């Protein structure tokens, strides 16, 4: 299962690569398929388009009762300008960025280490550890919010970045994604190193990790997206305005600005921009990440 998924699941792109099904001439059926696909694509793009158009309207045009794709008084950058003046979008973006980066980094390090042990080392208690980690996959984060909050209160970490970061670094499903990948690396590769008396850590760092770049990238992207977009936990664990992450900050904007539609849409687009850019750069890895790591659950 893991094997086939890892090596073959990358959806073939239109770059002239293998297309599985025999190409047939443009039949009626295929034309219909293009039409349906296009209708769906348009439906899926409308919210983006409408938000973008609104963000470039004047506030008066946005709240005019006549819905218009082409505002009577033309397009303007006013909404973006006032978001930058009034809002904390750059600060929130920065908060989201460094907390998500920290979560991703810590998750990768601790998960890869434990996955290596589970995959390659025979030690006492391994079975128990494995079962405990598997079982923990079903724990839904909302169940932990009350005790975690209380715990963070006791640790005096509420309203510090630690509160946002530390509870988000345990991803049992990711541990298993990594373990499955490590399982497939041929043992012959490390045997020479074992003969030379290389330590486990050295084998891990110099043989296993370099061979695991694709899966590490997939896990990293997956964890990063999750952390970047997480709302509930940062919402609970921070009240300090200077610490809000982008999703939590945006939530406060709504009430603060009231019915400033153009500004709301401008903020939403600015918040969406970083991940859209990330996606355009890492499209292949993200899709591969979803189709491999996604199998283990969200």
């Amino acid at each position, binding site marked *: 299962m893991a094997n086939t*998924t890892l090596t073959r699941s990358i959806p073939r792109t239109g770059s002239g690569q293998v297309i599985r099904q025999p190409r047939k001439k443009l039949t009626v059926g295929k034309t219909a398929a293009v039409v349906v696909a296009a209708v769906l694509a348009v439906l899926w793009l409308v919210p983006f388009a409408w938000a973008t158009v609104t963000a470039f309207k004047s506030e008066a045009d946005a709240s005019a009762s006549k819905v218009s794709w082409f505002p009577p008084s033309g397009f303007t950058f006013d909404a973006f300008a006032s978001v930058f003046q009034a809002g904390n979008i750059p600060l929130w973006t920065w908060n989201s960025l460094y907390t998500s980066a920290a979560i991703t980094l810590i998750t990768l390090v601790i998960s890869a280490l434990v996955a*290596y*042990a589970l995959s390659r*080392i025979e030690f006492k208690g391994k079975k128990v550890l494995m079962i405990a980690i598997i079982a923990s996959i079903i724990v839904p984060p909302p169940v932990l919010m009350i*005790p975690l909050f209380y715990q963070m209160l006791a640790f005096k970490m509420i309203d510090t970045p630690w509160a946002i970061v530390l509870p988000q670094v345990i991803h049992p499903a990711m541990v298993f994604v990594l373990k499955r990948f490590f399982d497939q690396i041929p043992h012959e590769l490390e045997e020479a190193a074992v003969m030379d008396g290389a330590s486990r850590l050295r084998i891990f760092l110099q043989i296993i990790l370099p061979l695991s770049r694709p899966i590490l990238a997939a896990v990293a992207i997956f964890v990063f997206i999750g952390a970047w977009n997480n709302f509930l936990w940062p919402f609970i664990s921070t009240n300090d305005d200077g610490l809000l992450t982008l999703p939590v900050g945006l939530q406060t904007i709504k009430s603060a600005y009231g019915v400033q539609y153009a500004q709301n849409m401008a903020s939403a687009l600015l918040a969406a921009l970083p991940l859209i850019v990330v996606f355009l750069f890492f499209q292949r890895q993200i899709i591969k990440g979803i189709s491999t790591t996604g199998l283990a659950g969200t």
Partner: protein
Amino acid sequence: MSSSTASRQTSQARTTTAPGIKTGPSLRRSRDNVSGWAFAAPFLVFFLVFLVWPIFYGFYMSLTGKSLTGANDALIGFSNYSEAFADAGMWRSLGNTLYFTVISTVPLVLVALVMAALLNIGLPAQWLWRLSYFAPFLLASTVVSLFFVWMYNPQLGLINDFLSKFGIPKVGWLNDPNVAMWSIVIATLWWTVGFNFLLYLAAMQNIPAQHYEAASLDGAGAWRQFFSITLPQLTPTTVMIVLLQILASLKVFDQIYQMTSGGPGGSTRPVVQYIFETGFTGYRLGYSAAISYIFFGLIVLVSALQFVVTRRRSA
């Protein structure tokens, strides 16, 4: 999978019997015990502190009258639970969560299947379709909520304006208690269907081409091929997607809280919001923890069902 286990076994045999290693097998094994736990240790620390401990501590809290304002750590037994079972608010929110789960799972699986099937035919410009179906998944819930609150706006919103062109009267998408949950489902469908779509697409592209070649030699048309080859081959994927989706939908909170705050009149308030509110606005942490554990029980039940179903399939 099976090949990797086999190779592990042979190499284990090889390392323990390999000549030229000074240390005996037993010493090697005890060293493995140390290094195994050493590698597991960093994860284990976080795992114990931020997952295992809160699970047990949360359960302990649920047996106390702990509140956010003043400490009342005294154990009060299961009275939080008996109170919760008699609490109409909890049942209503649990019912809303189940309702959302049922009505969201069906479109989230079906639409994903349709999208993937369309792309699998081999449409040109694959990246364009993939991007448009999947891009919303990258957005934060807050962004999605801002988009949809704006589109659902009864007076200025795009959707009512569009419907009015067909003479359909204004709909209170988020104000009408009979409609609000469906509006949330539509927004959720738009937001997250791309994830299931990618899982389906990946699975479809793993189906060997020979199946289709053989079928088309036998004269099977595209529909026939889809229902006789694609769908049956996708069964394990479908089971997995349905179960993942159920578990994900049961946890719904973000978009509802942001779009309706659970309203109108509590008609969309999910159980996670009820837990949140009893804990953080009602200050009753102990009671809130008890409801968390009732909810947890529900999740465990679903997961157990999943286990049974997948077991039976593979057996």
